[in-house]
């Protein structure tokens, strides 16, 4: 099981290593919630068709925080709630999708990407990924972009 060939083949087929790797007779490996939240957040955001993560309130707070000088920029784990046990993890995601995508297919793709990333990086078995679509993004209703050219050169 620990031979290098077995390791490579399990990586290429996308099959995760055994979850018992985290709990061994020589000691336990624990993974903090924040780690799982970040991995899930980044891998969900990567999927094409996902505009943003987070519920309405969290997005508003995030937009405010990003404007504060010296803040650490966008929070990657916004919109992600996790429950992590010794061997397993369950993920809840709040997302905003882009207009014109198939939500069913995007959700399936998020699930696949989040599960693959988490199982490869942490070895935790992902029991479920619940995706809740909070809003839909329509291009052009972004208030961030200035519509008028600057008055001074």
């Amino acid at each position, binding site marked *: 099981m620990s031979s290098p060939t077995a390791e490579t083949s399990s990586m290429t087929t996308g099959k*995760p290593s055994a979850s018992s790797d985290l709990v061994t007779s020589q000691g336990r490996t624990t993974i903090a919630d924040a780690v799982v939240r970040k991995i899930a957040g980044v*891998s969900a955001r990567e999927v*094409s068709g996902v505009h943003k993560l987070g519920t309405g309130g969290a997005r508003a707070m995030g937009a405010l925080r990003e404007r504060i000088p010296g803040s650490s920029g966008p929070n990657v784990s916004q919109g992600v709630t996790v429950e992590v046990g010794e061997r397993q993890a369950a993920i809840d995601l709040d997302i905003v999708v882009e207009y*014109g995508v198939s939500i069913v297919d995007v959700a399936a793709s998020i699930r696949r990407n989040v599960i693959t990333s988490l199982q490869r990086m942490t070895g935790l*078995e992902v*029991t479920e990924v619940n995706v809740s679509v909070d809003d839909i993004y329509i291009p052009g209703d972004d208030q961030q972009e200035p519509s008028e050219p600057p008055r001074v050169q």
Partner: protein
Amino acid sequence: MTALPTVPDPDALVAATLACPHVASMSGGLLGEVATYLPGRRVRGIRTRPDGVEVHVIGVFGPSVTEIVSQVRAAVEPLVRGTELTVHVDDLAADLDDPTTKGARSA
């Protein structure tokens, strides 16, 4: 451990489909929603569902839809390995400036 089902490579399906002479291009549907949503990009015209694979194409003007579909099916079927394959012809590319399509139309 949750074992994810293996899915056919959407890029390989697109390459095989576009190699068919009766296919003008892939079709994304009305809104461009028919796609495989991958991290960072999407592959137009291929939809992979647990119950099968859908291939959406825009055919060339001339051959019958049956001919287009059977050509795509022959090219793609070996790649999906047993899963149900549905081929949709969403549109026909009728290029009126192209003499070959004009000829096909009058024939």
